[in-house]
C-alpha cells in the first residue's frame, strides 16, 4: 500500500537541473521567486512548476541549506520562522557556512507572502520525512494544516494539496492514520466550500485510503458515492481514485466495473510509479480470474514486475488447469504474500472458479462420465457434492450438459454449430462499436480544454469593448437626433 506514494516523485524536466548548478540554495531561491510571481499573477501553473522543481532537489536537501533558505524566505523572528527552525537539526552548521554568509549579505527582503510560508512548511516537511523523523514531521504537518485552515487563497491550492498528502503520509508511517480522519473530513468540507477542486480531489483520495487502510469498505463507498465529482485535475489523483474504486468494487463483487477501473488505473499511472502499477496489476489479475478470464502471460512479464507477480502467476496457472490440489498448495505457499497484499479473502473466493474450470475441461473431453469419476477428478469429497455442483454449473450456463440421476452420470451435449446462429455477428458488432467509440473519444480528447486564464483576460477586453460600443451607440444616437 505504501508504494503508490512514490508516484509523486516523477522525474522533473531534466533541463531544470543543469550540470553546472551552483548550489541547492540558489535553486531554492529561484523556486521562491517563481512562487512569488505565481502568487502575484495568480497563476497556479507556476506554482505547480515550482513544486516539480522542488521534487528534483529533494535528494539534495540538507538541514543547513534549509535553515538558510528559511532565513531568506521568512522574516526572522516571525512565528513561522521560529517554529520551522526548531524542527531542523543543528549539527552540520559549519559545513555550509559560506552559503549562509552570502545569503545574509543580501539585503533582507521582507517577504510576507503566505504562499512562501506554506512552501517553507512543505519543504521542511519533505525534509523531515526523508530523514525518517516522523514524530517531528507529524508535529510540523499538523502545524501547517492548522495554518492552512486560516488562509483562503486560490494560489495556495496547489501547495495545500501537496501538504495534505504529506500530512496523511506522516500519520500513515507512524501507524496512526485513524487519528486524522475527522480532520481530513473537515478539510474536505472546507475545500468544497472554497471550490478548491484539486484539494477536494486529493482529500477524497486520502480519505478513501484512510478508510481502506482499516478495511472500512462500507464507509469508503458511502463517502465516494456522495462526494462531488468533477473532471480530474491531476492525473495522479485520478489514477489513485480509480485504484481505490476498483478495490471497493472488487470487495462488493462487481467484478466487471472493478476490472475496468483497475486496468485503467494501471495504464494511466506514470511509468516511474512502479509500485503503484504492481499493486494495480495484482488486483486486476485476481479480478480477471474471478470473472473467469485467464490473464495473458505478457501481463506477468512486464518489466520490473516479474518477481512481484510471481505468486499470482502460479495462482493463475492453478486456476487455468482447474486443479484444486495445486490451487490449495499455491495458496498455502504464498499465504504470507497474499495476506500482506490483503488479497487473501479474494483468493478464498477463487476456489469456486477452479472447480468451474475443471468441470468445463471434463465436460469438453467426455460425452458421458460417471459422477463418481467427476468427484475423483475434481478431488471433491463425495458424489452428492459433485452432483449438486454440476447441477449448479449447468444452471449458471458454465457447461452445457444434462444429468442422469438413476445412472449417476453426466451427459455432455453436442456443441451446435455456432456459426449457424447470430452469435458471431453480435460479437463482431460489439467489437466494431468499441473501435468506433475509441476513435471518437480519442478525437474528443484532442480538443483543448476550456482555458480559464484566457477567459479572464478576454473578460476585461470584453468590458472595454462593450464600453466602446456603448459610446459609439450614444454617438450615433446623438447624430441621429442632430439630423432631425
Amino acid at each position: 500500500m505504501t508504494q503508490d506514494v512514490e508516484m509523486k516523485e516523477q522525474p522533473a524536466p531534466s533541463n531544470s537541473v543543469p550540470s553546472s548548478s551552483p548550489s541547492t540554495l540558489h535553486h531554492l531561491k529561484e523556486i521562491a521567486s517563481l512562487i512569488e510571481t505565481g502568487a502575484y499573477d495568480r497563476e497556479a501553473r507556476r506554482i505547480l512548476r515550482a513544486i516539480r522543481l522542488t521534487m528534483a532537489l529533494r535528494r539534495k536537501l540538507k538541514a543547513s541549506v534549509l535553515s538558510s533558505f528559511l532565513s531568506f524566505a521568512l522574516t526572522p523572528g516571525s512565528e513561522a520562522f521560529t517554529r520551522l527552525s526548531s524542527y531542523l537539526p543543528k549539527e552540520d552548521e559549519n559545513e555550509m557556512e559560506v552559503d549562509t554568509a552570502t545569503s545574509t549579505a543580501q539585503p533582507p527582503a521582507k517577504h510576507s507572502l503566505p504562499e512562501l510560508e506554506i512552501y517553507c512548511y512543505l519543504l521542511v516537511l519533505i525534509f523531515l520525512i526523508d530523514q525518517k523523523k516522523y514524530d517531528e514531521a507529524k508535529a510540523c504537518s499538523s502545524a501547517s494544516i492548522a495554518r492552512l485552515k486560516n488562509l483562503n487563497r486560490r494560489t495556495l491550492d496547489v501547495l495545500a494539496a501537496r501538504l495534505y498528502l504529506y500530512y496523511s503520509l506522516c500519520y500513515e508511517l507512524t501507524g496512526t492514520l485513524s487519528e486524522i480522519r475527522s480532520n481530513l473530513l473537515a478539510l474536505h468540507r472546507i475545500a468544497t466550500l472554497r471550490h478548491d477542486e484539486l484539494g477536494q480531489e486529493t482529500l477524497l483520495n486520502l480519505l478513501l485510503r484512510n478508510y481502506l487502510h482499516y478495511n472500512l469498505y462500507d464507509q469508503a463507498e458511502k463517502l465516494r458515492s456522495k462526494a462531488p465529482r468533477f473532471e480530474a485535475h491531476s492525473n495522479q489523483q485520478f489514477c489513485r481514485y480509480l485504484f481505490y474504486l476498483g478495490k471497493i468494487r472488487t470487495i462488493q463483487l462487481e467484478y466487471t466495473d472493478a476490472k475496468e477501473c483497475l486496468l485503467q488505473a494501471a495504464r494511466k499511472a506514470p511509468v516511474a510509479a512502479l509500485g503503484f502499477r504492481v499493486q494495480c496489476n495484482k488486483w486486476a489479475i485476481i479480478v480477471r480470474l474471478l470473472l473467469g478470464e485467464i490473464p495473458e502471460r505478457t501481463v506477468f512479464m512486464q518489466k520490473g514486475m516479474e518477481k512481484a507477480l510471481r505468486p499470482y502467476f502460479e495462482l493463475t496457472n492453478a486456476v487455468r488447469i482447474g486443479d484444486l490440489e495445486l490451487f490449495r498448495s499455491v495458496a498455502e505457499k504464498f499465504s504470507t504474500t497474499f495476506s500482506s497484499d490483503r488479497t487473501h479473502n479474494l483468493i478464498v473466493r477463487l476456489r469456486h472458479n477452479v472447480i468451474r474450470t475443471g468441470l468445463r475441461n471434463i465436460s469438453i473431453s467426455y460425452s458421458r462420465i460417471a459422477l463418481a469419476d467427476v468427484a475423483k477428478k475434481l478431488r471433491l469429497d463425495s458424489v452428492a457434492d459433485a452432483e449438486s455442483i454440476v447441477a449448479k454449473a449447468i444452471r449458471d450456463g458454465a457447461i452445457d450438459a444434462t444429468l442422469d440421476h438413476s445412472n449417476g452420470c453426466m451427459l455432455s451435449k453436442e456443441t451446435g454449430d455456432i456459426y449457424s446462429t447470430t452469435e458471431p455477428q453480435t460479437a463482431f458488432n460489439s467489437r466494431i462499436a468499441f473501435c468506433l467509440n475509441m476513435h471518437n473519444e480519442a478525437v474528443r480528447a484532442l480538443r483543448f480544454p476550456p482555458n480559464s486564464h484566457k477567459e479572464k483576460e478576454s473578460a476585461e477586453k470584453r468590458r472595454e469593448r462593450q464600453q466602446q460600443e456603448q459610446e459609439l451607440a450614444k454617438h450615433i444616437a446623438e447624430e441621429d437626433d442632430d439630423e432631425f
Partner: protein
Amino acid sequence: MDPQLTEVSQMFERFKAAFIRKDFDSCANLLSQLKVLLTKFRSLPPLFENTPNSVNEVLLAREIYEHAVVLSVKIEDQDAFERDFFQLKPYYTDAGSRLPPSQQEYLILGLNLLRLLVQNRIAEFHTELELLSATALENPCIKHAVELEQSFMEGAYNRVLSARQNAPHETYVYFMDLLAKTVRDEIAGCSEKAYDYLSINDARQMLLFSSDQELLEYIKEEHPDWEVKNGSVYFQKAKDSAPCKEIPSLQLINQTLSYARELERIV
C-alpha cells in the same frame, strides 16, 4: 456508584431474569426502556466522552446490546437484529481498544454473517468479512459462516444442510432453518435445468421433504409447470436456442447504416 448506572444495571438484571425465563414479551419491554436510559450516558458512542464511569458504562451498554441481538434472533425478528447489530458494532470497532474483549463478539459477528447470507446480501457479507482479522477467521463461529458461503456459491448444497447439525451455537439454528428454505429453492432451480426427469423418490430426497405429499404440494405451489406422471417428475425443458432460420434484416440494416455514418465522420 452513579445512581443512573445502578438503575440501568438493576433493570438489566430484571431483563436477564426474564430472558432466562424465556419471557420474551417482558424482555422486549424492558429492552426499549433500557435503550432510552442508555441515551443519557455521555460516554457511549458517538460521543465517547471520558467520564469517571465510562468503562463501566460502555461495558454495560455493550452487554445490553449483545443481549438485544440474541433476543431478536429468539423472537425471529430480522429487522430488529439488523438495528441492534448496528448499534452494537461501534462497541467492537471503535471502543474495542479500550475494553476487554467480549466473549460474545465472534458469536454475534458470525450470526450477522449468516443473516446476510440468508438475505442473499453477498456484497455486504464480503464487506463485513474484510473487517475481520486472521484470528477472527479461525474462530469456529466465523469459520462456520464463511464455509457456508463457499459451499453455497459452489453449489454443494448438501454440505450447507449438514452444517446445520454442527452449528456452533443454538441461536444459529434459526438462520440455518431459513437457509434451508433458500437452499431448497436453489436445488429446485438447478434440478429443473440439469435433469430431464427424476423419480418421485429421488426428487423427494433431493428437495429434502419427508413425505411425497409435501413434495407434491411444493410442486403445485412453486413450480406448476413441472409434470408428475408414471411415478416421476418431468421438468419442462426450456427451448434451446435453435439455429437462426431468419436473417434479422432490420437490425442488420440499422447496424450497417450506423457503421457507414461513423466511417463518414472519420474519413
